[in-house]
């Protein structure tokens, strides 16, 4: 799955199946990201691994997408794990106290 909109954000899946999100995610692009991520979850198995090392900004609607994706995975007996994250985005997970849900 490769998706990108305008020049600000992109999602790529690398060879080992790690989903890398880059740029800035806000409410103008979350519907596309949500659709892409949920479709990807349907096509795959096991733990979904997210690399957010290039993601500089995430707003509450983006966070809601991650929470929803995690819910879908948990319902299927799977999990979501964030392996790398920028300090700014990590702060958002920590401030809303959902960091532990994502292995942060």
């Amino acid at each position: 799955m490769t998706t990108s909109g305008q020049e600000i954000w992109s999602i790529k899946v690398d060879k080992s199946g790690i989903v890398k999100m880059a740029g800035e995610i806000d409410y103008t692009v979350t519907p596309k990201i949500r659709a892409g991520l949920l479709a990807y979850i349907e096509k795959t198995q096991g733990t979904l691994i997210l690399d957010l090392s290039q993601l500089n900004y995430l707003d509450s609607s983006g966070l809601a997408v991650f929470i929803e994706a995690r819910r879908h995975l948990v319902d299927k007996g799977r999990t979501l794990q964030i392996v790398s994250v920028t300090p700014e985005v990590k702060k958002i997970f920590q401030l809303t106290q959902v960091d532990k849900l994502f292995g942060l």
Partner: protein
Amino acid sequence: MQRVHSSSSVSAAMRLKKLIAANQALAQVESLSSLLPVLLRFAKDVTNALAASILLYKPETGTLEFSLAINEQPGAAEQIISQKFELKLGQGIAGCVAQTRESIIVEDAQNDQRFYRKADEATGFVTKSILCSPIVYREELLGVVQVLNAKDKDLFENEDLDILESFSHLAAVAMIRSRLLEKKLAQERMQVQLDAAARIQANFLPKIPDLGQESHIFAVSKPAIFVGGDFYDLIPMPDGSIVVCVADVSGKGLPASLVGASLWSKLRSLALPDLSSGELLQQLNSAMYDVLSQQLFATLVIARYWPVDGRVSLALAGHLPPAVVSNTSIQYLSELKGQPVGIDPVVHFGELTITLPVDSSLLLVTDGVTEARNEKREFFGEQGMEDHLRQNPGPPWGESLVAHVESWRGNVDASDDLTVVEIWRKAG
């Protein structure tokens, strides 16, 4: 015998007159539904044809659909439309024109391999000659116009095709114009609704109550786009306390505000005097779990304040920690634990009781303050907020903080809903 009045210059002048009349009539038409019949009558008239039709291109299916037809043979036009014939790109003369985007003159349709016979079979009309021209605006194919069976002669001529082509250019411009007009009208209708919704949301916010001599409240909530997912509430309790709530539904705009309205009314119905702040959040979470249906979440902070002695009982759901602010210190209540509402059906929320000292404030904000961005895409941040609190004497600080964020933001549109609620104690 000499032929009378069939010289090309006379017919050219006649055609030009008709084209000018057509342009004038097209300029008057405002809606797409009345535009196409006018277009078609002129196409047929200007080329002096027996029949004419417009097929519109549907990009989602890649097909042409008969949209309108005129035919001097009674009943034929109605039949063409009711049969709902569809032509793929490349199918029939119309399909070829749509595919190549080049006009075609057909002198003998019955013996032309490209000709699509089903329409004639359905109507009994016998197509002899065809003039067909694409309706294209810039790179976009809008459809095709065709005229059939020249009336005063055996075949259509190149001059007729020239006319039809000029005509289809006019038609393309007119169709785009009316499409833009419809979009503009739809936007205007939407704008009226959004303005009304914004007024309604503003009315939801409660009046600031009087807390006596020593205690004061400031509260403001500003949506980023007309309506938003932030709200605050101030609910007086029979024992003289007041339950203060600041909430932030994920996202912004209409979806967030609809959920916010539901959350607000649920909060009001659950806020009973014998519930602790943590229990209130717990009940709210259970009640809202389905409404949020795991696609949205809301962060909240609840602070129940007793003006009589400055006691505050707090609980928090994934929200920015409140700050106790005085002229000498800023203390965040980060020990309050609890995840946002709407993620899990059963959640435990930590609680904390403090006493708000005199000459200090309890400041509750949403991330619209810290996430505010200026032209250089810098964030106002916690630093910006703390700088403001340190550099200005108080209490209060809330109103000036909001003004500071707005002027700092400058001409940039707000990127998030912004809410600030401040409770402060000052010696009466």
